[in-house]
């Protein structure tokens, strides 16, 4: 473990620090939306979905647009609530936590990367990368070395003090990857991380993401409609008709 990461553990109240072999488990997840705002009908997106993310493995979810891939990722990351079922993050059910503990769980154990990079526009590249660690309670001085090291590893050493508006799409996405890795989370959740990039940048980001996740020993939950990218992961699931089917790898029983 990187020394600064040990500091994170020492520095903050890490309520869910126990290492689980399956950092994310989705049990019997069903998600339904109301058909219209005032309508009585419901649309089923996910039905009795089970999924386990194993530690250190990469898992991709593929499927057609509108099949519910992003919804599944949002639920897995504790951003959205399932209509029924449980989401366990390191064995802790998101539904049992208040806002503060749910936020803390997300901050320490999950890193997000989205198609739109979702960086803080008023913050420099370095500040964006440091943000999750500072939210976790570390001072800027403490978390600066790791943030700089991540930026350096992703070829952004000369962009640390640039604002997102001064960076290209590929550079922004690389900053988002650094930010996702900053707190050494158990799982990186990426939703179409290369969807908005040109082919050259997309391939570069794919390579960096997969390499870094492997190097850092993190799990990856990738949602994409890019089959080439997906099949570079250890496990591939197809989301179709509200359910998952294993397309590649061994998968894990819940």
């Amino acid at each position: 473990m990187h020394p600064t990461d040990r500091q994170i553990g020492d520095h903050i109240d890490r309520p869910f620090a126990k290492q689980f072999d399956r950092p994310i488990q989705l049990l019997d997840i069903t998600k339904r939306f109301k058909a219209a705002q005032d309508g009585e009908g419901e649309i089923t997106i996910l039905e009795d979905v089970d999924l386990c993310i194993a530690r250190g493995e990469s898992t991709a979810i593929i499927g057609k647009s509108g099949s519910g891939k992003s919804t599944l990722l949002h639920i897995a990351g504790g951003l959205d609530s399932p209509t029924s079922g449980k989401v366990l993050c390191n064995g802790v059910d998101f539904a049992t936590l208040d806002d503060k503990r749910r936020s803390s769980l997300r901050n320490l154990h999950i890193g997000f990367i989205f198609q739109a990079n979702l960086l803080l526009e008023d913050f420099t590249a370095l500040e964006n990368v440091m943000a999750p660690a500072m939210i976790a309670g570390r001072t800027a001085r403490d978390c600066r070395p790791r943030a700089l090291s991540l930026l350096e590893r992703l070829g952004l050493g000369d962009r640390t003090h640039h604002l997102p508006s001064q960076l290209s799409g590929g550079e922004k996405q690389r900053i988002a990857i650094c930010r996702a890795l900053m707190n050494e989370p158990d799982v990186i959740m990426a939703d179409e991380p290369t969807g908005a990039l040109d082919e050259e940048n997309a391939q570069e980001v794919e390579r960096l993401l997969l390499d870094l996740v492997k190097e850092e020993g993190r799990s990856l939950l990738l949602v994409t409609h890019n089959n080439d990218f997906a099949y570079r992961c250890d496990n591939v699931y197809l989301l179709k008709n509200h359910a998952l089917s294993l397309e590649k790898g061994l998968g894990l029983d819940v």
Partner: protein
Amino acid sequence: MNGSAVVNPFVKFWSAKRIFKKGRLLGCLVLIAFVMAPLVCALIFSESMIAGITNKYIYLSDGHLQIQGVAYDGLVTDDAMVLHADSVVSGYALVYSSSSTSSLLVKGVSSDYFNESRLSQVSFETTDLEPSNLKGIALSRATASKLGVSIGDRVALMIVPDDASRSPRPVLVRVEAIFHSGYDQLDSMLSFVDREYARTLFTSSSSASVEVLVDDTYIERLDDVIADLVLKNEGLSLREISTWNEHNVSVYNNFVTSKQMILIILLIVIIVAAFYTSSVAQQMIQDDMKPISIAKLIGMADSQVRLSAFISVSSVTVAGIVLGIGLGIGIGYGLGPVLSALSNKGLQSLSFYLLDFVVDIPWKSVLLISVCLMVLSTASVWIALGKTRRITPMRLFTSL
């Protein structure tokens, strides 16, 4: 969480960043400063003017305490409590000049009546005059102007006798001095003559009184001074002693009402300013919907988001208050000499105001309105920031 870090580092960092990046917050700072400055200025002027007018009444008209119908001789006082006890003989008279008439309180005072304390409240103009058999009178500049007389001129005093059996009698006196206290309202009612001469004009025992000036440390404890006087002077009863405000009930009540009205107006302005601050906070949240959603996405709790926005707005409010107080005090001191100059011009429209007063900062009142503004804006901002609870990371995806 690090025990030494009371506020999360990111909360502090984001709060500071907002203050320096958001023009809206800097606008809020300027507005609060511009609200506070006139409020402080108004407070300084109203309280200083009221204190100034009160002093004019106390030092020139009534004293802190007045003992009715008692001759000065033999009044025993505690030197620590009482600075001066002056025997005065006074009564009302009509003053006639060749062109006008005025009704005045004629105060007969001894030569040591105008001690250092009183001379700090009034200035006298005199010139060397030819000896005369006529008794002298000191008129105020306002009265002299009204009567069209100056030093050396003669005026007639028509004394209304205390005894109904005696008919009113005019006496001629010579204007030997003209005084000016800066408060024409009081000046135009007063005149001074020699006390022994006044005894011949006002013979009733009720015309005599003793004006007592109390040491500063006992001004708020006049009851103690009264009790001491009663204790030390046999035969002196409580009902013979009145305080200046009992003696000038209407003036005192006007002051109290004025202070209350000013306070009400200030509170209304403060409520408006606090409401504005909360609307700035609301607008800031509206502007920051996306950053807040992102911050929550990467693990910021709602309480931290709220605290961060609260620190930004509150810091700006405090800075605005401090800046406003500084500006208000600066303007207060700067305008003092201007008003003093206006006072010396003797403008008729300003005759009801005391313009020549010592600017004294009413720290208690300034602190009170600052705390009120701080508490009200803090509460309204905190309530307004409750909106952040409704901002979730999912907003990022539903609005994309």
